[in-house]
């Protein structure tokens, strides 16, 4: 009997060890592994989206409309300029407009839900709940609202999930769509946001006509430290700047010829001073384009060095940049 018991005990112990090891392997402990842990994490995230959808229906659909299409309050769906900040400038224009890191949709949405909005930031378009009281109520319990942090997290997850409409295959289309909105909404007052979009839509226009845009001149290799005054480099740089100005001039004129739209003359635009001063071109590419502008105008004129100003080309640029 003792031997039988010892055998059963020993085999059971082996079984426990084997099953535990199997569970451990199933967990997919390695990073990036498609184990149970990764699946569970995804599952919980999406359950949060589910309950966020239910909560949106309960609390938000009243003003933002079913499926966040927008009514009295702005849309929050994939057409809204909240999403796809990683796709490039202009797509998450709403976040840029509000001076928020355009990659951080979640943070923006969460804070907006939590604190609400005292006044509509675009009263011409969206009245909000009640202009006399508050455009959007504060939902966080911290500010007297009804929602707990976990509920706001679910809601924000639901809104962020509209990003699912913008998969990588549709990046271009989304970018274009975002740009059209950006130009429609923001062009008159804040041209610095839209320069990239003009460029983008021009490329679309070129393609529609079956034409190829002119090739961008290549910048001379950056000199080593202390060699910026090297005459050879200075000459190459001046040549490059001139080429760039020519390039932009031909790019925009070709765009117009293809039925596209060049940026408006900055003289007619009235930039909001605070915003205009604080926002330079944006991405690295934009700065390269902006070099043309700074080359012609002395620095510190207060006009941002954006491709919009740079690209207007020729004499117009000179006049524009000299205007303080």
């Amino acid at each position, binding site marked *: 009997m003792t*031997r039988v018991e010892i055998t059963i*005990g020993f085999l059971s112990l082996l079984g426990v060890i084997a099953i535990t090891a199997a569970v451990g392997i199933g967990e997919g402990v390695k990073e990036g592994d498609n184990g149970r842990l990764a699946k569970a994490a*995804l599952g*919980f995230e999406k359950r949060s*989206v*589910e309950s966020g959808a239910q909560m949106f229906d309960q609390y938000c659909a009243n003003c933002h409309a079913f499926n966040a299409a927008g009514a009295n309050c702005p849309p929050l769906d994939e057409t809204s300029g909240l999403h796809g900040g990683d796709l490039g400038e202009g797509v998450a224009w709403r976040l840029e407009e509000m001076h928020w890191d355009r990659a951080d949709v979640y943070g923006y949405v969460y804070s907006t839900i939590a604190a609400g909005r005292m006044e509509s930031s675009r009263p011409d378009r969206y009245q909000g709940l009640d202009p006399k009281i508050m455009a959007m109520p504060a939902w966080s319990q911290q500010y007297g609202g009804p929602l707990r*942090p976990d509920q706001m997290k679910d809601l924000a997850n639901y809104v962020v999930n509209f990003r699912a*409409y913008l*998969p990588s295959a549709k990046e271009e289309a989304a970018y274009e769509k975002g740009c059209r909105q950006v130009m429609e909404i923001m062009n008159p007052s804040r041209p610095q946001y839209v320069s990239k979009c003009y460029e983008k839509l021009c490329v679309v226009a070129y393609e529609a006509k079956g034409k190829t845009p002119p090739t961008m001149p290549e910048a001379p290799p950056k000199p080593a430290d202390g060699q910026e005054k090297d005459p050879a480099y200075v000459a190459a740089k001046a040549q490059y700047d001139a080429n760039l100005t020519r390039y932009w001039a031909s790019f925009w004129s070709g765009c117009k010829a293809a039925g596209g739209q060049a940026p408006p003359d900055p003289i007619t635009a009235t930039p909001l001073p605070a915003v205009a001063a604080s926002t330079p071109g944006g991405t690295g590419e934009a700065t390269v384009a902006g070099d043309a502008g700074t080359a012609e105008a002395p620095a510190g004129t207060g006009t941002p060095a954006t491709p919009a100003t740079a690209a207007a080309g020729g004499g117009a640029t000179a006049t524009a940049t000299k205007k303080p």
Partner: protein
Amino acid sequence: MLGSGSLRDKRETMNKEIQRLKAFDWRGYFGMVLDGVVRGIMAGLSAKELRAILRGDPPTERPNPRYKAMVKSFTLHLRPKYYQRASTWFTHTWRLGWFSVFFFVVETLTGIVLMVFYAPTPERAYGDMLTILSNVPFGQFMRDLHRLGAEGMVAVVVLHMVRVYFTASYKGERSFTWFTGMVLLLFTLVLSFSGYLLPWDQLAYWAVTIGTSMAEAAPPPAMGKAVNILLRGGVDIWAGGLLRFYLLHVFLLPLLAIIVISIHYYKVAREHSISLPAAVEEGEMEPEAKRHAVERIDLIPDLVIHEIMLASLASLLMVLAVATFYHAPMEAHADPQVTPLHTEAPWYFLWLQGLLKLGDKTLMGVVLPTVIFGVLFVVPWLDQNPHRMARKRPGAIIIGIISVILMIILTYMGTPGFGIETPPAQDILSHLVPATSPGPVKELPWDEVEAGPLDEAKGVHGKRTYFVSYPPDWEKQASYQNTEEFVFIKPEGQETKGLEADNEFLEILRHFKAEVENSPKLMPPVDDSAPLAKVTVEETQPGLKWAHFSITWDEMAVNDKDGTPLVFDSGDFKGQTKLKRETKAIPAPDVQEAKIGLHRDSFYGR
């Protein structure tokens, strides 16, 4: 100065020394050292002795070193040297006391692991649970083991009490042991219940809310209120209550339990041992058989080996269950604003819920349970019958059987469906889309819940309406002929156009249809303005479907007081019965709705 002569002398001495070392009994020496080490660790048992134990040989030394272990080792000194054979019969004890301790150890070990990843605050608790389940290797494994062990411990402790009652092992010197056992039963129940709140999900929150609200019924009202606030740490359970339950669960109760378990077990091991079966103690047996039955079974090796086998086997079964089918439930975040339609107590408190349905909260929820437990505590002193044989104590056996049956009935009565009338529409929808648990629809494969036609531009599927119960002529209407957008659910056996016959969602919808159509209270809207029941499914984000269940019905208006139908007092319809909609300011049928989001990657029940 070293001369050659002295070197020769040295050689001589070295040779002698080598001879001496060669002659030395190294084997014996190291054997002795090793033996000392083994004996030191194994409480005086030599390696030879251990070998003999494993081979089932008799002791190798006199006096029996296997008895010496109880004197030499702290852990073993808690154990008896032997039991009588009959008290170790499996069908006598069912090893229930042993399993209680086993589960207690499992709970302690897994609980310590879980504690590392858990903080008892409302802001963090639920999130920490999700982290344990999705970000901690073996986190779910540990949690499932902990939960399974908890259920097992309650079950085993209760069964242990039942066994001790029916074998009359509580009499005489065992009276106080029974009393400590009852204390441990209470501890086990409260330990399990206090752990119930910690996941901070809806199931936990509402079960504990109901549980503590019973304390409020304790007379007099001032005391009930005080006890309730003491437990909850406020008017409602929130941060204070969670911390209190946590401290009860991880600190106070385990500490007290360890002390009382020690007392309970020490009395068994040192004072009166495990009882002999009544038949052996009192019955008439052949002297030979009786001698065999009371023979000593030594703890070492027989019982220890048996216990190690039990531990391994039980661990294997638990681990197997946890790795395959058993998973501790986890519902939505605790929400004081959303009351589930049915709040279910943990199964070991269902009898209490059943009692509550029978009458007054104070009497049934507090007084009666207190009396029941009070009587159980003093069973050994109430039962003055000295006999242990079942046929010599028929009264006690009958009372025991009746009590067990009553408990089972009360437990059945405590299940949510029993005896509670909920409005039928709400009830039907709460089965499909429960407020607290995922429910059948969320557990379906995502693709089976089909939305409408694909919108190419947006990449999502449009709206699809499932008419579950509908006016018959709607089916023929031209506008509803597109089966991609409109589906008319047919009963079992008839083909439903637009859905595969083996679609699991169709099965649920058929069930839904049968439920609404068989509910006598739900009348289809008299003017056919809406279907009695329908579901719309729409993909609102890629991967997220939005299902909207609704029941629209008319019912007869009844008098709130006596339930008699209302009739028109005057006008054209004088004397005729009224519809409920005709009593409303704006006449409309009643509507009950439930909406849920279904995400492709939410992995419910899969």
